[in-house]
Structure formats: C-alpha cells, structure tokens
C-alpha cells in the first residue's frame, strides 16, 4: 500500500490504513509505505478530532499483525519530522528501500 497524500483535509490516509488492515484478512503480505506528506500519519496526530478518520488505531493494528509500516527517510527530513516522534513500530527506510519494496511487490495499491 502506497500512501502519498496529506493526512488532514481528507479521509484517504485513514482509509488507506483501514484498507491495509483489511488486506491482512487473507494470505496477503502487507506493507504500508508512506512517502511525501503522508509521513505525518505516523506521528501522534488526531485527525478524527476535526472530522477525519482514525489513524493511530490502524497503525497499531498493522504493527500487531506484523505487517510492516515504513516511512521514507527523505520525506521525514523534508517535513522536519524527527524519527523519535513516530508511533511505535514504524520503520524508517531509505528511498532506495522504498523502491525495492514497491518493485518486489506483487501488487501496489496507491492511495
């Protein structure tokens, strides 16, 4: 799952994460990849407080289900986010690793 959009102003980010959790209900190996402004989804934001969808519970669930949640290091730097602020279980990977995850996947679902 590839998430690229800003976390606020749309429920797409929350829906993408809900969708990622859903994909684990069958024999699918799921990795949620967050790049660009979507990396904010892995910080302690609460979009549900302004009418957006929930985020944290989906990320928690993915981590518990052993699905990978990875954020692009370069996107974190671009947005000035220190990795210490990320939710537990979120992995920081390089752009090259993001490319590898996407090219090795049987299917990529962009949101």
């Amino acid at each position, binding site marked *: 799952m590839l998430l690229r959009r800003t976390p606020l102003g749309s429920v797409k980010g929350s829906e993408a994460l809900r969708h990622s959790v859903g994909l684990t*209900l*069958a024999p*699918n190996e799921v990795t949620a990849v967050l790049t660009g402004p979507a990396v904010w989804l892995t910080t302690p934001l609460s979009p549900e407080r302004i009418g957006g969808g929930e985020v944290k519970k989906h990320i928690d669930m993915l981590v518990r289900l052993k699905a990978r949640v990875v954020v692009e290091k370069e996107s974190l730097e671009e947005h000035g986010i220190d990795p210490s602020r990320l939710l537990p279980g979120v992995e920081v990977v390089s752009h090259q690793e993001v490319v590898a995850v996407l090219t090795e996947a049987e*299917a990529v679902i962009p*949101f």
Partner: protein
Amino acid sequence: MKLAILLTAGVETEDARTVDNLARAAREMGHEVDIFFMDDGVFHLRRLEPLMGQGVRFTVCAHNAYERGVEKMEGVLFGGQNDWAETVSQADRVVAFG
C-alpha cells in the same frame, strides 16, 4: 487470468470510465474480472451496473456505502475488506483507481 480492480475515485475523475473500458475489454478477452468499490468509488455502482451483465463481479465496501447513503443492489455483494483481501490473494493482476 483473474483481474482485480479497486475503484476508490469519486465522480470528479474519469477513472470510472477507464474501469468500464478496462473491465469490458478484459471480459471480451475471456479474463475473470472483480471490481471492489470503496470510498467515493461506491457512487459509480449504478453507472457501471451494465458490466455485471458481461460477467463482471461487483463487491462494495458496505461500510463506505452506508456512510454515503448508497442503497443495496441486486447481484452486488455488500461486503467488507475481507472480501477484497480474498480477491487480491487470488488475483493474477491488481489495478487500483483512485
């Protein structure tokens, strides 16, 4: 070949038309086609209904349909993410529009 299509785009894009053309062409070539409607993609259910006559299977995220007031339709599975997860695990190709 089994083709799985995810449609999440709303009516502001041309994606539904592309899905229509793609699904039609795939069926003409003898491929199996499943479409999963999610988010604003549920608004395209009526428009794409003729595809079911071509043998395309429709599944709708019931949660999203309920949120948007989209009513049930005969022949359409109003299911959940688990239905799409099964479809993806069995598909040869997955294409997403949204």
